[in-house]
């Protein structure tokens, strides 16, 4: 009996969250089914193209290539962003001295350097990775600084009172305490990285999902353009959902105390933003 209730609960729960998306997709399918417009091909055909291109064409290869650039670029950004953030965040004077410089550099649209880097460094993976890493670096850095500064003084003093060695302090106290903020920064950085991944492939690339989309649109292959665009959307959704799962796993203690002590920190988490 009990198991059946649980199953019913889960199904009802799922229905509550997916009825609207499902209806909208069905509506799109229906409304576009007889479409003769060049720009809005029937959704069913777009899906068919998508499947065909992945199974028989090399859309899959393009996607994997893009993803690997994104992964490597993000990895660099995370390592450098967190490391620099931990250092700058601990030294208040340094942070104040560097803040105008950092604020300016962060405000530079990362997309602006794409044409320069790509044209100077060629069509390989390195310039794309560089651009992704550079753009994703700032949100991670600034959020890490914020997280370190927000660490409760009592926590730091406790660590000092028990004479926790520096190495342990960094990895068991400072880093975990700043982690909610760092993860929020990485989430923003992921969105920035995704944009830069696509843009960098718009310029003088011969592979990657961004290349696939522009290439299709210049060939006036509308269905392929739509298929590629939808695939990028799906990819963004899957990546950010996976990241959210990871965040919940890593920060279980943070979400546990949510609603009580952390509401103040919660408000600050979104301070550094700007996905696109």
């Amino acid at each position, binding site marked *: 009996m009990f198991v059946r209730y649980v199953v019913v609960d889960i199904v009802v729960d799922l229905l509550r969250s997916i009825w609207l998306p499902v209806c909208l997709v069905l509506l799109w399918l229906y409304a576009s089914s007889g479409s003769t417009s060049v720009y809005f091909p029937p959704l069913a055909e777009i899906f068919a193209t998508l499947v065909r291109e992945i199974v028989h064409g090399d859309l899959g290869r393009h996607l994997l290539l893009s993803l690997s650039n994104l992964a490597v670029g993000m990895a660099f950004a995370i390592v450098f962003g967190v490391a620099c953030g931990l250092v700058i965040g601990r030294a208040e004077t340094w942070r104040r001295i560097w803040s105008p410089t950092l604020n300016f550099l962060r405000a530079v649209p990362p997309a602006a350097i794409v044409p320069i880097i790509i044209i100077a460094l060629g069509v390989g993976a390195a310039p794309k990775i560089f651009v992704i890493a550079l753009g994703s670096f700032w949100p991670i850095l600034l959020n890490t600084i914020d997280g370190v500064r927000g660490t409760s003084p009592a926590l730091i003093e406790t660590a000092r009172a028990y004479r926790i060695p520096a190495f342990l302090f960094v990895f068991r106290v400072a880093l975990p305490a700043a982690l909610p903020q760092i993860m929020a920064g990485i989430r923003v950085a992921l969105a920035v990285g995704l944009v830069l991944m696509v843009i960098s492939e718009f310029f003088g690339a011969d592979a990657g999902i961004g290349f696939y989309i522009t290439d*299709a649109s210049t060939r006036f292959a509308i269905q392929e*353009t739509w298929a590629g*665009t939808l695939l990028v959307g799906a990819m963004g959704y899957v990546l950010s959902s996976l990241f959210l799962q990871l965040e919940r796993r890593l920060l279980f203690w943070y979400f546990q105390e949510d609603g009580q002590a952390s509401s103040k920190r919660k408000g600050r988490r979104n301070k550094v*933003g700007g996905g*696109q």
Partner: protein
Amino acid sequence: MGEGFRLFIWQGVAILFVVAIWALGNVTGLIDVAILPPVQIVGYQIIAVLARPEFAAAMGHTVFDALRGLLIGSILAIPAGILIGMFPAVERATRMLIDFGRSFPVIALLPILVLLFGATSEMKVVAIAIACFFPVLIQTISGARRLDPTIVDTIRSYRIPAHLRFFKVLLPAAGPYISTGLRIATTVSILVSVGVEIVSLTPGIGREISLARSYNETATAFAYIFFSGLLGVLLTFLWDRLEARLLGWHLRSTAE
């Protein structure tokens, strides 16, 4: 004078330090001039570019289109966000769509938008509006949902009707969150504006960067990049000022 002045000097030193590293890189040949031209040439171009007739026009296009997109996106997002936040069932049903929208890199829509609208300013504004819509929407929803439980009870027990609840309670309560959303969206609007211009060559700073680069005037491109960064800093600063005015009650009531 004193403390503040000393900090100011050191902040200047930090900037000079970056410039010095740059110059050193140029001199030793560690930095490729094709990527980052010599600092003095970029410096000269930053001044020279101001005299160009297309400079003011490009700045105007970028800012004006960014603000138009921001305005359209927020006007749609704020009421939608409060309505979604008011009804848990609606919030549930739209969550997936919103997650999809927020994680969608708007730049990837560009080829389709160009097919639909052509490489025009309108196309740019549409892209910016889409990009600004989501951060404002998401912040507004969380603001409307995060109402103090005692306020919820107070509102219910005094039987405050729906329209007053919307304008007098939920909207101001969500104010700080909406403001955060708008601040994010302001940054986003400039980033997307420049990004779209670079890719589609619609008028604006981004187009000047792309063109300068293709004429091999990398230093000029960097001068424009400098101004695009300055624009971002300026808008953020202005937004902070405005926020302090609009949300005085919030800053003071949380300061206690």
